[in-house]
């Protein structure tokens, strides 16, 4: 697919003086590479069930100063108790509304690059990572020094509003030093009529570091939302990911985890709730590069109407990675005859002493369970809701923080209630 639609915007971007020129070489290189490989088509193995034509044929414009809020933003409706928030509105950082908790240093993308002596993360050179590198706008880097336990969770609130076809490419780095820990939330909201967000997140966990990463993607259903998560884990580190996606027309999470040190552990949990013609997609790769590393993937989708979804979960166990455990579970609930799910759990094992499992089920509401509840006096509507909530509960239970769990649970119940009434 051609990236020519993006060329004009790319030139425009290079001419905006609020973007540092020192990043231009990286941008140009990434854009040249993207031009070479193009956007994915359905002939690409990991994109067989995902239609990105809205992006490849789309005409998205970079966010301009005019797309930033004119006055101080009212964010009451996105309030979350007990967290520090960073607010990004249509790609523009809202400094006066933002704060970081004690123990976290926030750097801009450029400052971070200088800190790292120009060592720029380029991830796996997928088209969307390259697009992000080329167009990276809001760069945010969170650094937690070693042995710091950050008590207050930090949230980035991404708000996308307005009628213009804007494209934003947030780039987030999270570096946790040895034996530190953090709860990091990304919360995507807004009622944009057309919007394309292509986010790249780079996570680096040193020995014994622990990150809880919570992602709530509730963008308007007219938007495109691609997330590229790249996680690198050292010895004894733990990465717990929870995601609730009910937003965007096309929502795709590309998650790539490298378990590089012994006893590194990652748990990827995701719950999707789709309606109308939404498409929600999880493409996960976990690489067991070291012995005694552990991973779980626990992904569930609830699909209404003509919505569709993909689970593409790949676990790769490299040759020296003995005594690892890896489990993949994908369960899908179809609440309409026209909803569609593609599930593809894959294990690729090159070591011989491992404990791995994978499984996938897709089905409808259990009629016997429904009748059981009705026979106890619960009306059909409430009984259905109880069963769907029950289906979701074991993923929701993976949310580590009680207040955030309550928030997400309430949000989920509310949305489900609206869909089922």
């Amino acid at each position, binding site marked *: 697919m051609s990236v020519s639609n993006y060329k004009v915007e790319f030139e425009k971007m290079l001419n905006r003086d609020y973007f540092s020129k020192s990043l231009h070489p990286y941008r140009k290189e990434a854009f040249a590479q993207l031009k070479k490989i193009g956007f994915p088509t359905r002939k690409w193995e990991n994109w067989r069930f995902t239609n990105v034509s809205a992006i490849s044929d789309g005409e998205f414009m970079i966010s301009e100063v005019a797309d930033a809020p004119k006055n101080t933003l009212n964010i009451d409706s996105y309030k979350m108790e007990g967290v520090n928030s960073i607010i990004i509105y249509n790609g523009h950082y809202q400094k006066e509304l933002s704060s970081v908790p004690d123990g976290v240093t926030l750097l801009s993308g450029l400052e971070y690059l200088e800190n790292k002596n120009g060592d720029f993360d380029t991830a796996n050179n997928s088209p969307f990572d390259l697009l992000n590198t080329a167009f990276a706008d809001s760069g945010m880097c969170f650094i937690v020094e070693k042995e710091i336990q950050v008590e207050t969770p930090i949230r980035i609130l991404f708000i996308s509003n307005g009628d213009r076809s804007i494209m934003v490419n947030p780039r987030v780095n999270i570096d946790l030093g040895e034996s530190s820990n953090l709860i990091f939330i990304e919360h995507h909201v807004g009622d944009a009529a057309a919007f394309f967000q292509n986010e790249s997140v780079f996570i680096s966990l040193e020995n014994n570091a622990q990150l809880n990463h919570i992602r709530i993607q509730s963008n308007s259903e007219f938007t495109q939302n691609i997330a590229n998560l790249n996680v690198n884990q050292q010895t004894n580190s733990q990465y717990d990911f929870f995601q609730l996606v009910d937003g965007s027309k096309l929502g795709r999470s590309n998650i790539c985890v490298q378990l590089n040190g012994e006893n590194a552990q990652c748990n990827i949990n995701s719950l999707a709730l789709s309606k109308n013609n939404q498409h929600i997609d999880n493409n996960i790769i976990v690489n067991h590069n070291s012995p005694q590393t552990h991973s779980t993937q626990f992904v569930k989708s609830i699909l209404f109407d003509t919505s569709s979804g993909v689970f593409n979960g790949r676990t790769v166990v490299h040759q020296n990675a003995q005594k690892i455990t890896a489990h993949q579970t994908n369960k899908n609930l179809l609440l309409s005859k026209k909803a569609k799910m593609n599930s593809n759990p894959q294990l690729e094992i090159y070591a011989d002493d491992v404990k791995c499992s994978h499984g996938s089920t897709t089905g409808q509401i*259990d009629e*016997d*369970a429904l*009748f*059981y*509840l*009705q*026979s*106890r*006096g*619960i*009306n*059909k509507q*409430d*009984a259905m809701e*109880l*069963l769907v*909530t*029950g*289906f*979701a*509960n*074991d993923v929701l239970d993976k949310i580590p923080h009680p207040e955030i769990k309550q928030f997400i649970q309430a949000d989920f119940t509310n949305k489900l209630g609206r869909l089922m009434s």
Partner: protein
Amino acid sequence: MIKIKNLYVNVEDKEILKGINLEVKPGELHVIMGRNGTGKSTLANVLVGKDKYKVTDGTVSFNGENLLDMSPEDRACAGLFLSFQYPVAIPGVNNMYFLKAAVNAVRKSRGEEEIDAVDFLSMIREKLKMVALDESFIHRPVNDGFSGGEKKRNEILQMIALEPKLSILDETDSGLDIDALKIVAQGVNDFRSPDRAFILITHYQRILNYMQPDFVHVLMNGKIVKSGTMELAKEVEKKGYSWIEEEVAEVA
């Protein structure tokens, strides 16, 4: 309480019940016995409104109302309860949450106020004692990973929490060891009262050692072919069903 008249029921176009007549009055305990495949469970399921059971003829009136016109949930709210032979497991749905939803649905239909979480918990603690279950039990998902005995006790727990007028116990005794059987029987006995009625479906006379039925009926080939008292159950226990079969054949 319930009047079943000339009830014919098909399951997937096969006629299973062929003219059932049965009346149960408040305070009574009726036992329905019979071999496998004679239609006992079909009778239970059709009364609570399971949809694959099609009534082709006959009427059922429940406290004056036409039971067959009601939805399953309305039947439950009107005071009908079935203890299932094979209670279904519902992973993810907390037992207490489910019980509270059920109790409140029934209360609401009676025009009573919904019970709050605190009152509910103290109420359910009392009922748990009656079926000898500890509190952790209600925090588990409904029937999920329950042993056979636990499932049956969970059914009885639901019965005493929902306080139905008519309880149908479908082979609640099968698969239980003697201790569990006593607990279940005791739970039912404690729950008996002059305004409540029971239909107990069973294979064995065993549970009747712990209960006092008013009537015993033998179901054969979709019909009640013989009715009597406890003496009939004892006779069946001793001699099996063939002699009844022969009697029926003679009459025919």
